[in-house]
């Protein structure tokens, strides 16, 4: 099969080597002569597009993408068909990266605050000045032997950026905390206990025939949805027998909507259900999982007759699920999301994942494939984020004046922390807040010094995915366009985050012990270690050939380099009942969920704001999913402004949006709006549900139990039209004989 020109270009790297390859390809001369000034780079030829491979690590997901570049501008993002984690598909989040790159409110140079904090009054300064200010502050702390009063908060970071970051914080003596609004710590800790590794394993959904998922909205937003959706398509129609999906959740999510059966459970009882399934199976599956439980007589207390009432399902349902799960050839149990966001979240997830040990699917086709370690020693996947309680402690330290310099990168602790932790007030007490934000997210909008980083499409990087494909891989991120603010000159514009750190260290006279003077060199030298392995899908006689190869393909992977060891089953303890903030006086459970804006970090991107929420089709606002009958009883209709009132006395307003799938005691509220800034598409829009949550934590890890708050609602009397796509077009001219969605029982298939 001949390689088409487009495919060929898709495989091109963004280096000088690419131009050589291009000419060697033997394209007609006239193609290269169209209005082409002699000095014009190859990708600036009018009318010719190039596709460069890179990696998107947005929202902690790893997605291989190819970016269409024409006349020096990025035009379109598509999935990289070679990349193991998404195989050509891509998410709306990756697509919208272009709007981040060309966002009208991007920060185009270093800034220092001139007005009161939060006023938005800044003055442009040069990079030399900006880095000088940061380094002199860090130097002062060091001289006073108070380096630990400098705190660096970032998103969880792996790969070479993680390496540079760790070396930097070690060199300057700062403390580093990794922050996630919705922590994956509970998940990763549970995986560590059940499978012996805290990396998120590959779920071989493609080859599974039965999936039992608990709370994890894996078809929409959870961990690596593009890749799970890829597997799901095959799970449904790629094999002779169509797979069956049962989704256990207290809310009707997109995954619940696509399931063959949505099993509604009371919030936080997912783990009880998993234990009960194990109790049913214990007689027929003499498995090590049960030994510890049986020996203590724990398991019997979870028999369906004992727990069905608390879970809110029938005994028959529990028994039937247990039977289907154990009789399937390739069953998978997975869980996360709200199932892990309760006071018993850790226990829930451990019980859920232990179901896999019962059916011994670890390392099996259509089962759980564990991930091996990084192929090179000095870089790895991102460590789990710090627990919520550590940020709570940080807020206390700030209040007592123990934090002098706070550096922040892609970690909006102003926005994401519940107000019950009092972070906003605590931040007021920090003398210097330094942000590396490229756009004014909330924490950047109150920063004193801003050192704006490149957009990831302008920067280098590597990605050792936390949720790997079941074999060794490293994604490579390369700049697909020159920095947008390059025209502002060397003193202004943006810089790569790692390069900012490396320059700051250099100014401070610190040796980070990195191999290279720039981040690009560090990565290239890192790639040499991969080259020397002489295995994987890119091998070459020369390093330059190898380097071009990994850039062309968007990374390096070795499908043979798998994890073969399956660790012993550790003892499993029981699952407690969940506890909630508020009590019987509060009528509803608040169930925050991720809709189109991630954890709120992407609220600045208009394509994501305008992307209809799959269930409600709502956009641009914060709405409340409420049961349609409950709404009717309360005299509520769509657009009524509700006040959500947890017992902690805080309140937010959001728009009522009744639908027939919401359980009567649940309020589903999307995360992501309610920013003080974030640019013109984000500021002052909707409300932030995270800000009013009770201070309830997981009993084992002290992570925030973000689904453990109860609340009442009051009707404010205001009304606002819900911006939604539903009803934008008229109804189809259909009748009882002609359906829009035709459904078959599958008997003929």
């Amino acid at each position: 099969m001949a390689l088409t020109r487009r495919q060929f270009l898709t495989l091109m790297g963004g280096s000088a080597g690419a131009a050589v390859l291009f000419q060697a390809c033997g394209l007609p001369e006239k193609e290269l002569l169209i209005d082409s000034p002699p000095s014009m780079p190859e990708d600036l030829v009018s009318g010719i597009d190039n596709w460069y491979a890179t990696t998107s690590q947005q929202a902690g997901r790893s997605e291989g993408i190819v970016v269409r570049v024409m006349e020096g501008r990025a035009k379109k993002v598509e999935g990289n068909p070679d990349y193991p984690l998404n195989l050509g598909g891509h998410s709306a989040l990756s697509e919208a990266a272009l709007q981040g790159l060309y966002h009208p409110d991007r920060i185009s140079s270093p800034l220092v605050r001139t007005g009161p904090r939060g006023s938005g009054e800044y003055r442009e300064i040069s990079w030399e000045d900006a880095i000088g200010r940061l380094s002199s502050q860090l130097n002062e702390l060091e001289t006073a032997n108070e380096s630990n009063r400098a705190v660096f908060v970032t998103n969880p970071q792996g790969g070479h950026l993680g390496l540079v970051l760790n070396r930097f914080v070690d060199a300057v003596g700062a403390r580093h905390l990794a922050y996630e609004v919705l922590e994956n710590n509970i998940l990763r800790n549970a995986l560590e206990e059940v499978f012996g590794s805290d990396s998120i394993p590959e779920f071989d959904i493609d080859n599974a025939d039965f999936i039992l998922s608990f709370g994890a909205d894996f078809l929409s937003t959870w961990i690596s949805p593009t890749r799970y959706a890829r597997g799901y398509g095959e799970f449904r129609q790629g094999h002779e027998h169509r797979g069956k999906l049962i989704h256990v959740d207290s809310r009707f999510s997109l995954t619940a909507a696509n399931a063959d059966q949505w099993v509604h459970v009371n919030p936080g009882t997912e783990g009880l259900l998993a234990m009960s399934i194990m109790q049913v199976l214990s007689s027929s599956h003499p498995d090590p999982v049960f030994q510890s439980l049986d020996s203590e007589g724990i398991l019997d207390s979870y028999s369906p007759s004992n727990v069905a009432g608390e879970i809110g399902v029938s005994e028959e349902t529990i028994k039937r699920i247990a039977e289907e799960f154990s009789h399937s050839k390739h069953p998978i149990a997975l869980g996360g999301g709200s199932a892990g966001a309760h006071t018993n979240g850790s226990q829930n997830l451990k019980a859920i994942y232990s179901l896999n040990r019962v059916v011994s699917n670890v390392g099996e086709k259509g089962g759980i494939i564990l991930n091996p370690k990084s192929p090179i020693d000095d870089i790895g996947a991102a460590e789990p984020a710090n627990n919520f309680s550590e940020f709570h402690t940080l807020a206390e330290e700030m209040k007592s004046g123990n934090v002098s310099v706070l550096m922040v990168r892609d970690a909006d602790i102003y926005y994401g922390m519940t107000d019950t932790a009092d972070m906003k007030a605590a931040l007021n007490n920090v003398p210097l807040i330094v942000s590396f934000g490229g756009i004014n997210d909330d924490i950047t909008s109150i920063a004193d010094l801003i050192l704006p980083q490149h957009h990831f499409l302008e920067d280098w990087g590597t990605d050792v995915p936390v949720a790997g494909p079941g074999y060794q891989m490293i994604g490579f991120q390369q700049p697909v366009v020159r920095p947008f603010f390059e025209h502002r000159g060397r003193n202004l514009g943006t810089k790569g985050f790692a390069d900012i750190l490396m320059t700051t260290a250099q100014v401070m006279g610190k040796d980070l012990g990195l191999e290279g003077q720039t981040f690009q060199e560090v990565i290239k030298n890192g790639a040499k270690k991969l080259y020397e392995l002489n295995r994987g899908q890119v091998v070459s006689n020369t390093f330059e050939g190898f380097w071009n190869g990994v850039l062309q393909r968007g990374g390096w992977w070795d499908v043979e380099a798998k994890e073969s060891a399956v660790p012993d089953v550790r003892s499993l303890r029981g699952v407690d009942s969940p506890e909630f903030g508020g009590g019987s006086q509060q009528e509803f459970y608040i169930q925050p969920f991720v809709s189109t804006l991630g954890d709120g970090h992407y609220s600045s991107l208009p394509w994501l704001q305008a992307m209809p929420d799959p269930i409600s089709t709502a956009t641009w606002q914060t709405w409340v999913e409420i049961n349609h009958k409950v709404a009717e009883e309360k005299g509520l209709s769509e657009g009524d402004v509700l006040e959500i009132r947890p017992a902690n006395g805080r309140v937010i307003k959001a728009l009522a949006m009744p639908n027939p799938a919401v359980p009567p005691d649940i309020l589903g509220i999307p995360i992501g709006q309610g920013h003080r800034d974030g640019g013109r598409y984000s500021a002052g829009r909707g409300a932030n549900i995270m800000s009013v949550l009770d201070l309830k934590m997981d009993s084992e890890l002290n992570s925030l139990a973000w689904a453990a708050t109860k609340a009442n609602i009051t009707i404010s009397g205001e009304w606002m039209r819900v911006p939604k796509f539903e009803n934008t077009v008229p109804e189809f001219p259909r009748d009882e004989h002609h359906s829009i969605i035709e459904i078959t029982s599958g008997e003929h298939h």
Partner: protein
Amino acid sequence: MADSNKWGMVVDIDRCTGCQGCVVACQAENNIPINLEEHFNQRRAIQWIRIERYWEGEYPNVKARFIPIMCQHCGNAPCEPVCPVYATYHNDEGMNVQVYNRCIGTRFCANGCPYHIRFFNFWEPEWPESLKNQLNPDVTVRSRGIMEKCSFCVQRIQRSTREAERDGVDLEDGDRGLNPACVNACATNSIIFGNFNDPNSEVSIIKEKEMKEGGRGYGLLENLGTDPNVIYLKKVDESVEVGHGH
């Protein structure tokens, strides 16, 4: 590859999760104006491909069903004969084509389309200056007063055809340069694009298999006689009786 092309699609709604990925991909590729909050409130948001969601039942026995809907490029298109200026016509590759600079905005075509996939530009499209850098140079930005709709990403077909002719090769079925943006974006492989005149294309093979008695294929509102160029494959649900639908 056949001598002439008849472009079409197969949409498998048993694979589709309703994730909206195709919707955003289409907006990016086709310079669709940003749908601001007020556009939704006025019911004038533009989506060349949209996901429709149908409710079935209510809690606790409730289902939501999803279906992506785009221009069906009907062989017998109700939108075509009503246009007084021939702004919309059928080309010889089986596609329903919109010529923007002919359109005078009567909106007769939108009235005629039973699928409601035609969208009218009630405003001059606006982008902040920097976001214009993203606009696709292969796609016209439509001005106020113009009707627009899914083109099967005709610019990709044109570019691929040109490149194939130049290189003296056939267009390749499933080539990602030829596929519309929604097809490439779709993670579940719900949407397949290809040439129905090529018996070896994936769409033809699926058509052959699924449009038979007992197969899952059907045309949307095909009772209207529009002869759509998009084949849908039925949702499978073991819990329902055959012939059930929305």
